[in-house]
C-alpha cells in the first residue's frame, strides 16, 4: 500500500514490501532491504541495507516521533486518499480550521459581512501567542462558530466563508 510521509515539509511516497523473509522499503523508485529490532523502552535498532543504527521512535496517531543521532524528527503520515484529495486550493476552501488548540481573543467580522482576501477575521491565542485568522480569499462570512473567550481544539472549524 502506498503512503505519503511528510518529513521536514517534504512529502515522500513510500511503500513496504515483503519478499520472502526480508522487508523492502520502496522509495524514490529504489528498493532497500530493511530490518527493525525492538530494544525495549521505545528504542530500536534499524538496519537499512548494511547500515545499522539505534534510534528512539514512537507513534502517536498519524505521527511518528523519531530521535536519531541527536536529532528529533517528525514524520507525518498520509494515506493516498488523504494525499490525493487534500490539495484543495484556497479558492475552493470554505472553512478555516484552527492550526492549534486555543481560545478566541477577538472576532473582527460578523456573519454576512463581505471580506477581502487577507483581512483579519478572527484572532486566536494559543500558548500566549496570538495568531490572526485572515480571509484566504474574497468572500462573504457565512458562519462564525466561536465567540470571544471560547476555546477550541486543533482543526476546529473556526469560521466559514460562503462557497
Amino acid at each position, binding site marked *: *500500500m502506498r*503512503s505519503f*510521509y511528510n*518529513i*521536514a515539509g*517534504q512529502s*515522500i511516497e*513510500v*511503500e*513496504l*514490501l*515483503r*519478499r*520472502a523473509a526480508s*522487508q523492502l*522499503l*520502496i*522509495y524514490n*523508485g529504489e*528498493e*532497500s532491504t*530493511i530490518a*527493525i529490532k525492538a530494544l525495549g523502552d*521505545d528504542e*530500536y535498532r*534499524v*538496519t*537499512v541495507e548494511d*547500515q545499522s543504527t539505534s*534510534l*528512539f*521512535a*514512537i*507513534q*502517536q496517531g498519524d505521527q*511518528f*516521533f*523519531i*530521535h*536519531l*543521532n*541527536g*536529532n*528529533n*524528527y*517528525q*514524520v507525518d*503520515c498520509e*494515506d493516498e486518499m488523504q494525499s490525493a484529495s487534500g490539495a484543495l486550493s484556497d479558492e475552493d476552501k470554505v472553512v478555516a480550521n484552527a*492550526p*492549534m*488548540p*486555543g*481560545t478566541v481573543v477577538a472576532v473582527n467580522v460578523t456573519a454576512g459581512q463581505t471580506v477581502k482576501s487577507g483581512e483579519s477575521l478572527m484572532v486566536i*491565542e*494559543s*500558548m*500566549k*501567542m496570538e495568531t490572526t485568522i485572515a480571509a484566504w480569499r474574497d468572500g462573504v462570512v457565512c458562519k462564525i462558530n466561536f465567540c470571544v473567550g471560547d476555546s477550541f481544539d*486543533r482543526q476546529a472549524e473556526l469560521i466559514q466563508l460562503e462557497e
Partner: protein
Amino acid sequence: MAQIKKVLIANRGEIAVRIIRTLKEMNIPSVLIYHAEDHFSQGVREADECIEIFGDTPVAAYIDPQNIINACHKSGANAVHPGYGFLSENSAFVSHLEEEEIIFIGPSAEIIKLMGDKISARSFMIKHQFPIVPSVVEEDDPASFAERAREIGVPLLIKAAAGGGGKGMRIVRDPAELDSQIEQARSEGLRYFGDGRLFCERYIERPRHIEVQILADRQGNCVHLWERECSIQRRFQKVIEEAPSPTLNDEQRKEICQTAVDMATKAGYSNAGTVEFILAQDGSFYFLEMNTRIQVEHPVTEFITGMDLVAEQIRVANGESLSKTQAEIQINGHAIECRINAEDPDQNFMPSLGPVLKLRAAQGAGIRFDTGLQEGQKVGSAFDPMLGKLITHGSNRDQARRRSLRALRETVLMGLTTNINFLQRILELDAFIEGDLHTHFLEEFSAQLEPDEIDEDTLKLLLAAAVSMDPQQQSGSAEIPEPYASIGSWRN
C-alpha cells in the same frame, strides 16, 4: 519575626520542582497548589502536600491571590515562594500576604512596586545618577511626547510602561513611523497590561543583555553573584543564557557587578534580585530593569558560584543573614542554560502541543535538567511553552558548550515539536563559539540556523523506522501476494 515552618509554592512547572527540592534539603515541608491541567506534573508528585485551585482559566487560577491565601490557611503554610512569573512581582499580592501574616519569600512590596514600574524604576536610577539610556517619559508631558522622542534621535525603542516579555515594544528607525508605532505600542500595552502609558528610549544597536544576580539580607549585606549574559533571545524572550559573560573583562565585570550592588543597596533591597543592563558595543552599559524575583536562568549562577539561590532566599526571608560574603563568592568555570520550548523554530516558532510520549534526560558530570514534565503529561496551550532547562557546567566556556551539545543530543523528548535541534544549531555557530553575541543574534544568523537538508541515509533510516512501525503499512505489505512481491517492479 516568625520562623518559616511550611512553604507554599505559588507556581508550577520546573520552578515548583526546583523549590521543592531545596525545601526538602532544608527539611521544610512543602505545599504545592495546582490546577487540574497540572494534575500529572512532577511537582504534584514531589510536593509534601498539594492543594487544587480553580479559576476561569488555568492561568487565572494561579494569579488569584485569594486562592493562595486560602491554600495557606488550609495547609498551615506560613510562607509563600512565588517562583517567577504569575504573582511573583505583584506588590498588591505581597501587601495582602503581609496583612495575613504570611511571609513572602522575596523583597518588600514597596521595592517590587518601585522596580515593577519601568518609569518609577527609571526615575529612581536617574535620581541616583546610575547610567540610563537617554529616554523620555510620556507622562511627564503627554503633548510633547513624540517631539521629545524625536529629539533623542533614531533608532528609538518605544515601550509600554507596564510592559515586559517583549509585549508592547516597538523599534522605530524611520522618524516618519514614530506616531503610528506609538499608537500600536499603546494599544498593545492596553491589551496586555491594561495600561497604555509609554516611554521611549534610544535604541542601542547590537546590544548585549547582561544581568547581575544580587542577594541582600535584612542585616544590610548585599552581594552580587556575578553576571549572566542573556543575549541569545528571540522576540525578547531569552533562549540561551550563560555565566559568566564571554565578553566582559575583569575590570568591566567588577564595575557592572558593583553598580548592580550599589543600585540594590540604594533601594534598600532584600532577598534575591536581578539587575538587567544593556551593554553597548563600546563597552558602556545602561540600566534596563530590575527583576525582584528568582530568574528562570538562575541555575547558571548556581553552577559557577556553587550556591543555592532558593536556599539563600529562604534564609533571608527567615531573617537570617547570607551564607557567604562577597569575597567568598568566586567564579568557578562556566555554565550555559538552554531553554527547551514546545515550539517549532522552523515554523516561525509556532507553539506546539501534544503529549510527552518519551522523556529521557541526558546524564553525566556537569549536567542539570530542570523540568516539571512527566512522561504521559499533555502539554497544552494554557501555559508558557517552556518545557525545561538544560544547564551544563564546564571548567571553561568551550567545555560547557560541548557538554550542552552532547546533552541536547542525548535528551529524548518526543511527542511534540521542540526547539532542541535549533538550540544545537545555535551552539554550533562560529559566532556563538567566539562569543560574539548580541540580542538580535538569532535574527542575524537566521539563514544559518535553518535546518540542514536531511541526507539520504538519514532519510532512509527514518522511512525504514516509520514504515516498520506503521500499522497501515504492516498490514498492507502482507497483502502483496507471491510471486508478485518477489518479482518486484518488473515490466515485460
